[in-house]
Structure formats: structure tokens, C-alpha cells
């Protein structure tokens, strides 16, 4: 017996497409549109205050090169946050990986064999730290905040011990040559960032892994009862971010030609900020790679504009803080209008 009952929801205003201007901001592309506008505004400010200096190809590449390291970390962070987690230890992992990959022993081995040894080392160290984080969080049932806070302290401490608080200059020329080169005029670092972004987008939006990440972040209990191995998945998310940190360490080694335990300071804050202003929900269940990339670009462009105008880093920090608050406030209003918070 089929009965013809009304199916109107209890909250009739949710889930409907709003007509007009608001609709532009409602879709996943629309949320990014706000960020694009912000980025364009920043560029306009850059052009007005610094003119051709800002718009020069070299300067644009400088911005992108600056963005690439933190960008790779932020892509990884997007996965962890979308999956309902948080990682405060990324900066420390970057430092540890950079130091480990540039010790005398590693570099000697790299000189004797191939520079890929340094890359492998950094990735293994990063992935290993991520694995420890993931196992403790998923199987040890500890809070992500606490575990990664411990890793933040521990990894940077270990980096200091290994480096004996010295800066380790990279002497493997082939390594520096490879990562310092240009491909069709575009720095290799920027190419890596672009590739990681594309891979991240595909992974999040087109694969079962990405779909499960959204489910695990959105409702872990429902995901578990739907047969998804939530603990294993959570662990993999932290490993993924660890690998991203390892890669970032490689890029940083190439850019600065040195490994030190002070690399990656405050990366955790920059990455989380970029992810959040990009539109990924801090509580998990919704993530956007495009938003994260735009978030990273906004922050680095901001830094660039400030630097070109000889403004100090303290002013920059204040501006960053304001941007984070304003961006998240705007997003909340858009989300509230869509009824999909």
C-alpha cells in the first residue's frame, strides 16, 4: 500500500538553491569565487602600491615559489581536517625531515649514489612521523590535538639533537640543481606544488579514498557501520600529511640550500589558516582543495605586498589575523544562508 504523504522537511528553508546573487556563492565553486575576489583585490592593492614591480614575472614566480612549500603542507592538512582531525606537528616534521635528509651521512650517501636518497629520507621521516601520529590517534584513541602537540615538541627536539643546533648546508649539487631548475620558465618547486594540488583534488573528489575521507569526517560512526575501516583510514590521512611534510622539507632544502631545526616554524598555523579560510570545515566532513590553494595564495601574496612596501612582519601578522576572522565570518554567513553549516 503506497500512501501519498507530504514529504516537506521540518526545516523547509534548507537545501534549496537561492536565486540571484547569493547563488553565486552557494556552490563549491561559488565559495571559491569569494576567495578569488579577495585575491584579485590583493593584487590590485599590489599593483597600485608597487606597480610594475609587483606584476613582473619574476615577482609572480617569487610569490608562487614562496607559496609552494606551505602549499604542499596545506594540501595534506586539507585531508586531515576534512577527515575530522587536526595536526599541529607539521612544522616540526618539516624541520626533522629537512635535518635528517641533510645530515653528513645522508649527504655523503647521496653524493656517492644519487640525490634521490635525500628525497627518500625526507619522505620516510615525514611518513614515519605521520604514521606515529595516526596510530596513536586512531588505535591509541588519543585526541589528535594532544598527540600532534607531543609530536610538535618531540620532532623539533629530535631535529635539534640531530643537527646539534647547527645549520647543515646542502652540498649535493645535483639535488640543488634539480629542484632549483626551471621547467619552461617555471620553477620546479612551483611545478611540484601544482602537481600536488592536482593530485590532491583528484584524490579528494574522484576516488573512493576521498569519498571515505568525507564520510569519516562527516560522521565516523555512520562510516564505521557502513563497513568503512575508520581507524585505518584515519591513520592513512596522517601518513599522507606526513609525506606531504617530507616533500615540503625537500623543497625547503632546495630553496634555502640548508637543513636546520628552525625550518617550518609556525607552519601548523599557516597551513590550518589557509585550509580554513579556503572553506574546509574545521569539524570535518567538507573539504576543498581549490579553496586551500587560494587560501595559501592569498597569504603569500599578502606577505609579498607587505614586503614590497617595506612593511614589517608584525603588521603582516596583524593583517593575517584580521583576514582569517573576516574570511571565516563571511563563510559562516554564506553557509547559514544555504542552511548547510
Amino acid at each position, binding site marked *: 500500500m503506497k500512501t501519498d504523504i*507530504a514529504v516537506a*522537511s*521540518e526545516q523547509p528553508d534548507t537545501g534549496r538553491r537561492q536565486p540571484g546573487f547569493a547563488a553565486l556563492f552557494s556552490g563549491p565553486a561559488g565559495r571559491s569565487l569569494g576567495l578569488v575576489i579577495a585575491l584579485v583585490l590583493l593584487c590590485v592593492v599590489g599593483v597600485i602600491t608597487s606597480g610594475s614591480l609587483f606584476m613582473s614575472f619574476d615577482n609572480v614566480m617569487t610569490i608562487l615559489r614562496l607559496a609552494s612549500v606551505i602549499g604542499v603542507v596545506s594540501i595534506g592538512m586539507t585531508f586531515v581536517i576534512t577527515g575530522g582531525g587536526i595536526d599541529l606537528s607539521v612544522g616540526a616534521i618539516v624541520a626533522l625531515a629537512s635535518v635528517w635528509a641533510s645530515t653528513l651521512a645522508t649527504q655523503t650517501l647521496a653524493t656517492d649514489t644519487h640525490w634521490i636518497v635525500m628525497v627518500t629520507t625526507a619522505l620516510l621521516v615525514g611518513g614515519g612521523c605521520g604514521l606515529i601520529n595516526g596510530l596513536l590517534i586512531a588505535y591509541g584513541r588519543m585526541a589528535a590535538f594532544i598527540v600532534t602537540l607531543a609530536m610538535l615538541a618531540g620532532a623539533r627536539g629530535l631535529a635539534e639533537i640531530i643537527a646539534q643546533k647547527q645549520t647543515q648546508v646542502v652540498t649535493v649539487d645535483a639535488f640543488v640543481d634539480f629542484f632549483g631548475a626551471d621547467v619552461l620558465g617555471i620553477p620546479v618547486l612551483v611545478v611540484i606544488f601544482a602537481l600536488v594540488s592536482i593530485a590532491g583534488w583528484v584524490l579528494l573528489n*574522484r576516488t573512493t579514498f576521498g*569519498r571515505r575521507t568525507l*564520510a569519516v569526517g562527516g560522521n565516523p560512526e555512520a562510516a564505521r*557501520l*557502513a563497513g568503512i575501516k575508520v581507524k585505518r583510514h584515519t591513520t592513512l590521512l596522517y601518513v599522507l600529511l606526513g609525506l606531504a611534510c617530507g616533500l615540503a622539507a625537500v623543497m625547503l632544502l632546495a630553496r634555502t640550500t640548508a637543513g636546520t631545526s628552525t625550518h617550518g616554524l609556525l607552519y601548523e598555523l599557516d597551513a590550518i589558516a589557509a585550509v580554513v579560510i579556503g572553506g574546509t570545515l574545521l569539524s570535518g*566532513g*567538507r573539504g576543498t582543495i581549490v579553496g586551500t590553494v587560494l587560501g595559501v595564495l592569498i597569504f603569500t601574496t599578502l606577505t609579498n605586498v607587505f614586503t614590497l612596501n617595506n612593511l614589517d612582519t608584525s603588521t603582516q601578522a596583524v593583517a593575517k589575523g584580521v583576514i582569517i576572522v573576516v574570511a571565516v565570518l563571511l563563510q559562516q554567513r554564506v553557509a547559514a544562508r544555504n542552511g548547510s553549516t
Partner: protein
Amino acid sequence: METSTETRLTPEPDATEPLLRMRGIVKRFPGVRALDGIDIEVRAGDVHCLLGQNGAGKSTLIKVLSGAHQPDDGTIDWQGERIRIIDPQAALDHGIATIYQELDLVDGLTVAENIYLGHERARWGVVARADANRSAAGLLRRLGHPEIAPATEVGRLSSAGKQIVSMARALSHEAKLIVMDEPSAVLDQHEVRRLFGVIRELAAQGVGIVYISHRLEEIREIGDRVTVLKDGHTAATGLAAATTPTSEIIRLMTGRAIEYAFPDRPATPPSGEPMLAVSGVSRPGEFRDVTFSVAAGEVVGLAGLVGSGRSEILETIYGARRSKAGSVTVGGRRLRAGSVGAAVAAGVGLCPEERKSQALVLGESVGRNITLASLTRFARGGFVNRRDERRAADEQVAALDVRPSDVERHVRTLSGGNQQKVVLARWLLHDCRVLLLDEPTRGVDVGARSEIYTLIRDLAESGIAVVVVSSEIEEVIGLSDRVLVVSDGAIVHDGPAAEIDEHAVLDMVMEGKTAA
């Protein structure tokens, strides 16, 4: 207020000014008129029942009453005076308290702290704990539950206990009107009895009660008057709760004369090789030595009180809890204990008790919720083929008649019945052979229930072994081929549904006795 008891007993409609009179209440949301002219009168000492299907406007109406929503039109008279309820605090100040379905208690605080949350008993900013505990104890005594200690942490209380604490909180605001949104939904029959006792006591003290429930039989028992809402209108108000015929109430709710009915059972009960065989499964403290089997095409119902172990049995079969003894086999193959993955791979599906928190990813679309358990089927090398996925989801939505039939829609915007269909669709898509249903019609309105029942029977006829758990004994009996009665963690009866009635089951459930 001293005459209130008499007012209740002598039905003289306009002898006294009603406690609350709402006239022509209109509330618009973008694109919808959620309330379109509601009239309702509640008298002191009355238990006034509010009926209506999901979407009829019950929730919106009580939100207007509690100050959470502002009406766009209409008037509210409170004890003869025109008032505006500008926010929840104003409602409380007037003495209107609302107890929502999702109880808004803080688990980490004590009973007394919860009762006085927001209006703490304090002296110079220091909470007067002893004073609060003493007053809380007084309120709990008044509610007939002196056994709840004011210093207990609320998180340790049962749902029923929390319900009582919420009522005590309402009383602490000296509420003259208490609105209760489906208070019985989380209670078993025994606890509902006690709740009714409390409600009667409050009504006798002159408190007006607005009582919302999907269960007609409860309304018959506890209600004085009934108001039926339909599509934001008042379909009828002031009906006598005890005497208005059921068919009349259903007609008012649906606009048609229907009664929800159970689909016919097959004449010959399905038999043959058991699809699901549970043998000697135990979990100390929850249930022991549970043995039963379900044939393909058979519906087996588990009846029992909340806490009898019935939900735990389902979750253990599913691997969400690890059994300490015994075995579960599906299609002749033994499942690894405590592994949801193994159960799902073997074709077992669970529609859990708490649909929203355990089954659905609310922020995701209908389609993605349906395909969640079968993603690998649409994936090659980890990449999801979205066209195949979409087609499969569309097919399920059409087959189960999910409305609106839009797979892109957020699942949170669907009604309870349609959300349940989404969960069922997930397992149908997974080609499950054993379907475990825990409270399949909780939060599903009367009209949609028949649909769910028919669906479950259709699924069984397609060869799925179905196990149903429900607090509503009528539902277990009506839906099943065979009924198992669980009492105190053990199966005390196993027999054909046609040979047992509600009273017999109740007897066994309450007494733990085996049928002679």
C-alpha cells in the same frame, strides 16, 4: 490555580480564561509558509496533545511558543494578556518551558547543576551547592522520582532519568505550561507508564501540558484534548482525546481515511536452509547464549524492553560489538567476530537505531549516502565512476520511492521516513542477504510507516533474511513471520507471530516468564 483540578474535570469550555490562546499564527520561511494560521487553546491543568505528520508544523509551532522563532502574524494571549515571546528567556520568564526531543542537558554536570543551569542558585557569584541540591531534591520528589540523587552526574542517568531532570528544570522556572516534544520516543513501555504518572500529577497541580507524540494510543491514555495540524493549518482543535475515533484523527492528519496496516504475511512461512544462524552468542552483562536462525525470505522480530539486550544482539551479529562466545554464520560461512568489515563483505546490512548519528552523513547528498557501503563497486583503481554511481543511486531512489527523488539533495533535508529509505537503499545497493533493522520506524510519521512496512516485506520476499527490533510490540508482531522475545539478556520465547499477541509478549517481557 487551586480551581484548576475542577476545571479539568468539569468540561465547561468557556468558564475560565485559557492559559494560552494562540490565534492565526503565521510563520514564513523563504519559499514556504511553515505555519499558515494556527489556532490553539490550552487550559491550565489540561494535557493538550498536538498531532500531525512530519512537516505539518508541530516543531515550528513549539519553537514559536518557546521563543526560538518569531511569528510573522497572529496573536498570543497568555493568562488573558497579549504577549510577545521575543526570545527563549522571555518564554521562561512567562513560565513556558519546552522539553525538546534531543534533551538539552549537559552530561558532565550534576542533576542539580543541570536543573539550575542559567539561573544558578548563588550567593555573591558562588554557587550555593547545598541549597541547589536541596531544592532539586524537592522538585524531583514532586515529580515522583525521589530516587534520582541531585548530586549524580546526568551522563550516568538513563534516557528516562534525563527526561525527568528536564521536567524538573522546567518546574524550576515555575513553569505553568510545559511543552513536551515526543517524550516517549526514547522510553520503553514501563518508563512511559511512569512518565504518564508524572504528567498526570503535574496536570493535577494546575500545570498545562502540550504533549506531542506519534503514538495515538498514548494520546488516548494521557490526553484531555487534541489539536491536529496539517500542512501548517489547524485541521481540528479541542477534540476529546478519549473519545474521538482513530479513523477520524487519521483522516484529519492525512486528509484521507487510512489506517496504517501491516502487509500480509506469506501463507506458508519461508523455510529451508537458514541464511543467518546465530549460535550461543554471549556478551557478559548484556545478553547470554543467544541462538536463533533466519531463513531467506523470513522476517524475524525481536521484542523486548530497552536495555533487554535486543539492540546489543543486533550490533553483535553485525560485528560492531565483539561476541565473547558462540558463532554467527551467514549463508553457511562463519563471520569473524567483532569485524564490521567481515559482516558487510558477507552481505549483512544494519539500519541502526539512531539514524542520524549512526547511519547518515547528514551533510552529504542522498546519492552519496546510498553508495557509501558499495563505493568499490563503482571504482576502478580507486577512481569513482560518477556516472555509474549516479545511475545506481537514481535506481534505488526510484525503486524505494524516496521523496523528493533528487539524489543531489542533502540528506538532512529529508523527512524521517525518507531518511530511513535512504539507509535501506544503501544496503539494497550492496546486495545484502541479511538485513538487521533496529527501530525501523522511529521518528517516521504514521503515513510513511505503512510504506516502510511494505518495503520491508517486499525485501524479504526478494530473498533477504530480515531481523527487526522494535520497542513497539505491535510492530514486531505485525511485521514478522516469527517473534523472539528477549527479556533480561536471554531469549525466552521463539514462535510464529500469528500465534502470539501483544499481551502475551508484554507478559513475558515484564515478567521474564516463558510462555506455557
